[in-house]
């Protein structure tokens, strides 16, 4: 696998959406290619950052009360 092919699979690799065979090929490429590894790490950091920044928000307790009341009359 060359750099262009590896980068084409970048997000599928990070999202764990590749077949085991292709995933192995990408991983092998990354072991031998520092520039691609840096790019993958950068994108990985971005995705983790995104999730960490956005997962914190929870439904307000008042909304849950409203729904329970509406559904079950409590």
């Amino acid at each position: 696998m060359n750099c262009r092919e590896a980068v084409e699979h970048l997000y599928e690799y990070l999202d764990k959406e590749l077949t085991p065979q292709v995933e192995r090929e990408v991983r092998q490429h990354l072991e031998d290619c520092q520039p691609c590894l840096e790019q993958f790490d950068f994108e990985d950091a971005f995705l983790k950052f995104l999730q960490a920044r956005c997962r914190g928000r929870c439904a307000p307790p008042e909304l849950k009360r409203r729904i329970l009341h509406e559904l079950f009359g409590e």
Partner: protein
Amino acid sequence: MTEPTTPGTPTPVDDRRETFEREALVHLDTLYRVALRLTGNAADADDLVQETMLKAYRAWHQYQQGTNAKGWLLTILRHAFINEYRRRARHPETVDVDAIEPFAVFEDLQEEDPQGRFFDQIVDDEVLRAIDELPEQFREAIVLSDVEGMSYEEVARILSVPIGTVKSRLFRARRLLQAKLYDYAVGMGYIKGSRA
């Protein structure tokens, strides 16, 4: 038509309620986060989630227990949003998402900040604001995949598009979001950047 029950014996209603609480209500936070990003404000998000839960409870007999309740609920939520909220959403869709040329932030920063440390300086509200500025098709792909961690297949099912479309939207959405955060970080002086 109800059968006589002895006290303490679960009735069909109790059973329905119990399974709904166990399999549907546990996804309240997910529904709320997605609703918030779709509608853009807390009041509409509240109403959208409440309406979704009501519709889901009424249709609970159609849900196959043990299958993907989160996906099922999000599909209901999205349909409700499209039918009733999108008309008055803040961002009318005038953007041709396929014409958006993705900008690769990494290529610009591989000397200055190859590890993307600047991301850590960006506060939550700024990230959410940047997501809210994305075209709707990008926003929903990002929220379902990156925030809620759903698979391409699940996202494709919820959005009723092929998996290939999910991939290409996610690619463009992520690059566009990166570019927005990059511009913000340059503006704030977190990074120098070199994008003209």
